[in-house]
């Protein structure tokens, strides 16, 4: 029984660490998709957030400042995306693809220009994000694995509730959902669709940047070219999985994180199954859950359609 509890604690620990980047980015993605702007640039926004977060903490010695700067860096690219998609009425997939090239390109370019290496120097523990309850639990115990982790982990879970509230209980939430369903009708009612969409896409960039910064400031402790690869796309997948709702995206990320945790513990326990096959678990499980339990998701009606104000 003890072994079981301990292993379960390890699975949860791995899940808790691998979930926040996905979750933060997925929450960002929900904002964008729900207001009618497809944002596949999430991946790029996470990467620039990861880089700026790492160098922010490196130069200031403070993980929180780095975390915030990472978010702001993501937001800058959110602005770029919003300018293209909202002001210019650009094809959102094209604009997002552009972001996915420019942002990681810029991150690596700056990294090489500043450090003449594609990695940033490793951060010391003091300039990373802090862990909770240090010294309260015995290292290796269930409590240590589950509660002794980064405080941002639990803050990101709390954020799900906050964003749920914003979406369904506030005026802004109603407007953003309306902007994603029928922008023309919104405009008739005096809602400024452009402003709502700008706000949402900026928020999505900010959250994606935070998600990226979490990777470098908690999980990895430095920026490397491979820190993000694909996590932004997984976040988008979690949003579709969760039928474009914050709570659904949360479940998607948790499912993914749990499978990841299972994979980590199985491969650490010296299982005879190839680690490559174990790595497939999250993706295969997602597909199976989709086929048997979730089914189709209704995309917000105006999603991906540029809205151009009539004169």
């Amino acid at each position, binding site marked *: 029984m003890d072994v079981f509890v301990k292993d379960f604690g390890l699975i949860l620990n791995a899940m808790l660490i691998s979930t926040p980047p996905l979750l933060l980015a997925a929450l960002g993605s929900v904002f964008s998709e729900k207001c009618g702007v497809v944002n596949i640039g999430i991946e790029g926004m996470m990467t620039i957030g990861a880089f700026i977060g790492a160098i922010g903490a490196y130069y200031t010695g403070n993980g929180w400042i780095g975390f915030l700067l990472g978010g702001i860096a993501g937001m800058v690219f959110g602005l*770029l995306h919003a300018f293209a998609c909202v002001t210019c009425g*650009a094809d959102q997939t*094209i604009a997002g693809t552009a*972001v996915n090239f420019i942002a990681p390109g810029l991150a690596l370019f700056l990294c090489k*220009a500043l450090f003449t290496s594609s990695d940033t120097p490793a951060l010391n523990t003091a300039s990373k994000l802090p862990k909770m309850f240090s010294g309260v639990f015995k290292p290796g115990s269930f409590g240590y694995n589950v509660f002794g982790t980064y405080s941002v982990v639990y803050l990101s879970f709390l954020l799900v509730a906050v964003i749920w509230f914003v979406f369904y209980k506030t005026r802004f939430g109603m407007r953003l959902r309306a902007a994603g369903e029928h922008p023309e009708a919104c405009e008739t009612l005096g809602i400024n669709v452009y402003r709502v969409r700008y706000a949402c896409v900026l928020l999505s960039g900010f959250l994606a940047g935070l998600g990226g910064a979490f990777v470098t400031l908690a999980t990895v402790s430095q920026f490397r*070219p491979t820190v993000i*690869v694909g996590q932004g796309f997984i976040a988008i997948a979690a949003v579709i*999985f969760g039928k474009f709702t914050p709570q659904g995206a949360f479940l998607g990320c948790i499912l993914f994180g749990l499978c990841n945790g299972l994979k980590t513990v199985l491969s650490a326990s010296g299982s005879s199954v190839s680690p490559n096959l174990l790595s497939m678990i999250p993706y295969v499980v997602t597909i199976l859950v*989709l086929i048997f339990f979730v089914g189709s998701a209704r*995309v917000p009606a105006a999603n991906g359609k540029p809205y151009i104000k009539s004169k």
Partner: protein
Amino acid sequence: MKRKFNIWEGNFIYTLLAIVIGFVVGAILLSVAGIDPSVAYGSLYEGIFGDKKYIVYSMVYAAPYILTGLSVAFSFKTGVFNIGAEGQFVVGSLAAVLVGLFVDLPPVIHPIVCMLAAAVAGAIWGGVVGLMKIKRGINEVLSYIMFNWIAYYLSNYIVISKSVKDESVEATRLVKDSARTLMSDKMVIATGCPTVNWGFVIATVCAIALWFIITKTTLGYQLRAVGLSKTASEYGGISSSKIFMSSMAISGMLAGLGGAVHTLGMTGRISQFAGQESFGFDGITVALIAGSNPIGCIFSGLFYGAMKYGGNKLTLVNAPKEVVNIIMGTIIFFIAIALLFKRIMVSVSEKKNSDVKSAKED
């Protein structure tokens, strides 16, 4: 009244302008980083056009990008976004290499069988996603992303398995010589490029065939109709699920073929991945620069391949090769927002025309 041809209405001029702006933005960044852009661009130019060998290398590099570009462009025609070309490329490479390793066939026939296997593998990888979309209504973007990663780990699993792995490197053994698509020794000597192969020719033939299918056949008509309006084409008697299925399978086939062309031509093997190789994602860029036109994909694929190949040489002048990604991204960004300029330019030039006309009438 016959309308005058207006250059500002086409897309070509904006693409050209976007490319110029891309290089300007790259130059600004390079100067900020303290690198002389003329030196960097000079080495890029030298790296692509400095020797006929380099030009041939650029073409060798371009072949897989043209094919993944075609794959994405084709899916766009039906309104599907094939973000799964990455995975289809990987399973295509795998199928080609496995047939190239374990099947004994005479030259010429062997690579053809390898490529057929790759095409079938890609078509299945894309088709399953199509099936899930039609039967269970599952959003294809989501399943494509999952299938990319499943293909990624599947490849790594097979590459390092005992019967396939090379003894000394983290890669498969080289495929049999009979399976390679390399050109004759005479061509190797003439071009100076040891991996000169038929990939570019195959990609070009595919582009032309695809152009023919899209513009001249019933299938192409149906594909475009479904892409423009699913409901209207259903009303007109086209089964949209059948069309989605064929579009996604053909799209997967092209990406799979891209994998075969790359492995049988240039590399001869698959290495263990440390990260996604991005042939499929780069196909999105190629398709976008080409405006989803199959013939355009030949040129944008060439451009992309050349930039990738030439970009490698930027390190010689200590310029980060990522500047190529920034240039590419900027180009796509300006292609995306070109619509805005187009609206302005078309309205300006039409106003000018009508001013001229009304002046004449006066």
